[in-house]
């Protein structure tokens, strides 16, 4: 563990910042969005998003289907242009210097995106190659990435034979092989059974602990965010409606409820309660258009 701590410190020194807890002002921003607007036709999927992810934290972007999470993530990953506003990844403009941003990113999209016609190892090798890992260290690096997600034994089987949880871990290895500074995961546990969900999160956690990389994750599972995220932002109708550590958000709602006269014996609020409080009754109305639901179902059916 000493080694881990050392490498994490090294990494932060190299990045020229410090991420000591409580030292907010000095910690560097991994992602910053200011006034981001992205519209599909007449609908503003992202509607004036301001977001700041600190280096080294696990940041959860939460919200129901259709809240604009995936669109926001796609602007950060350079998949979508930035029509209005500014998106920066470690200071690089995501609209201008796309290649520089991409080199810092490891991205796991919502779909199970491993190529089923290749083995696990070949899937990771492809990403080593497109991130310019030199031939002499390719095999070793790929081996380390597969070991980090516990897939060493299954590495030479076709990815088509993997379970949903294994595919997710393989995608994590694909993202890790280029040593990204920012890992972006879009609904990493969607469609997975509870055990596979825990497995995926434990690996994300372990990787973060060992490398100190920043993790930006979207999810609509509030319980996962509560357990694994350092800070969360609740997104609704394209904007951030609340921001803080899960404890802060829950405690905030608890206090307000007590002030409104709720009894002390009432169960402490969950993140989901916080979200319902913020989103109000409109929660089920506009959330999740047909395409969202369909793609979610498709993912679920691929997982089996």
């Amino acid at each position, binding site marked *: 563990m000493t080694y*881990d701590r050392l490498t994490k410190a090294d990494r932060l020194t190299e990045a020229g910042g410090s991420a000591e807890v409580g030292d907010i002002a000095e910690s560097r921003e991994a992602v910053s969005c200011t006034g981001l607007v992205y519209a599909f036709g007449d609908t503003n999927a992202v509607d004036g998003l301001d977001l700041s992810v600190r280096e080294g934290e696990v940041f959860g972007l939460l919200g129901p289907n259709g809240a604009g999470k995936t669109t926001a993530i796609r602007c950060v990953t350079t*998949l979508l242009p930035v029509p209005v506003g500014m998106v920066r990844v470690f200071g690089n403009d995501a609209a201008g210097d796309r*290649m520089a941003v991409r080199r810092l990113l490891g991205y796991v999209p*919502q779909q199970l995106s491993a*190529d089923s*016609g290749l083995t696990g190892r070949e899937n990771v090798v492809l990403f080593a190659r497109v991130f*310019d890992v030199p031939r002499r260290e390719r095999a070793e690096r790929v081996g380390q990435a597969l*070991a980090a997600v516990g897939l060493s034994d299954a590495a030479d089987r076709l990815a088509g034979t993997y379970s949903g949880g294994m595919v997710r871990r393989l995608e994590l290895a694909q993202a890790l092989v280029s*040593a990204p500074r920012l890992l972006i995961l879009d609904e990493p546990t969607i469609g997975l059974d509870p055990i596979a969900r825990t497995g995926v999160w434990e690996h994300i956690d372990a990787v973060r602990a*060992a490398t100190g990389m920043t993790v930006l994750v979207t999810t609509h599972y509030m319980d996962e965010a509560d357990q694994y995220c350092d800070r969360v932002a609740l997104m609704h109708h394209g904007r951030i409606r609340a921001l803080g550590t899960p404890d802060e958000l829950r405690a905030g709602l608890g206090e307000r409820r007590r002030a409104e006269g709720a009894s002390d014996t009432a169960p402490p609020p969950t993140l989901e309660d916080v979200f319902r409080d913020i989103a109000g009754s409109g929660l089920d109305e506009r959330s999740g258009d047909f395409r969202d639901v369909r793609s979610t179902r498709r993912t679920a059916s691929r997982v089996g």
Partner: protein
Amino acid sequence: MSAAPAAPLPASADPAARNLLLVPPTPRTGWRLLPARVGAMCAVELQKLRHDRTELYTRAIQPALWLLIFGETFTRIRAIPTGGIPYLDYLAPGIIAQSAMFIAIFYGIMIIWERDAGILTKLLVTPTPRAALVTGKAFAAGVKALIQAVVVIVIAALLGVAMTWNPLKLLGVAAAVVLGSAFFSCLSMTIAGIVLTRDRLMGIGQAITMPLFFGSNALYPVSVMPGWLQTISRINPLSYQVNALRGLLLGTPSNLLVDFGVLLVAAALSIVAASSLLGRLAR
């Protein structure tokens, strides 16, 4: 560092080893980037073919039938003026080009499948410019076509077609096959970028393969075509590919400079078109 790692990274277990997952690779820049990406895409294509050879075998059936049935029959009829060479010989280069085109023209379906599966999305977030990604895919289609060409050449040789074994000329044949499939696969990816769904692309692919094939000199010389068809043949890259293949394999008169020039320009234009539309698939 609060949570205990579920599966410690290799370096945690053995502090002496270098943990490469902490060291970002040095980026390739400039001209070295494109060949590296093309190599990566071609490697994937070969790996997939190694795992599943079914496609290789089933794809060999159609050209074999063309040569065996159509070729043998028309050789006996002697209806088509071929400039003194047996019709089967005349047909063989045409079938090489046709079977390679049939593979490439449906390559866009794979791109759409990769889009639906999230594979394309993920590749677009790597330091790979879109043009490099499309070029990589185009050459990967060329790898498939090349294997197909070898199969057809072997079948033709077994049927007694007298072709050159000059390695330099065979290299030229390989170049013509790769350039032709680069064009047709990019044409397919361009259409994919416009129609965005597999079903529509399938329909359009079916609709254009036969006109491209019959509107070329693959089966018969341009001189026997009606005037309007000659015009189509003249703007059809498949004709130039067949011309080059015939010139190289059989030694028939052909203008290789023009043939390769047209194939190069066509491939380059289609790469530009496909890469400018690729973004639509990522949305």
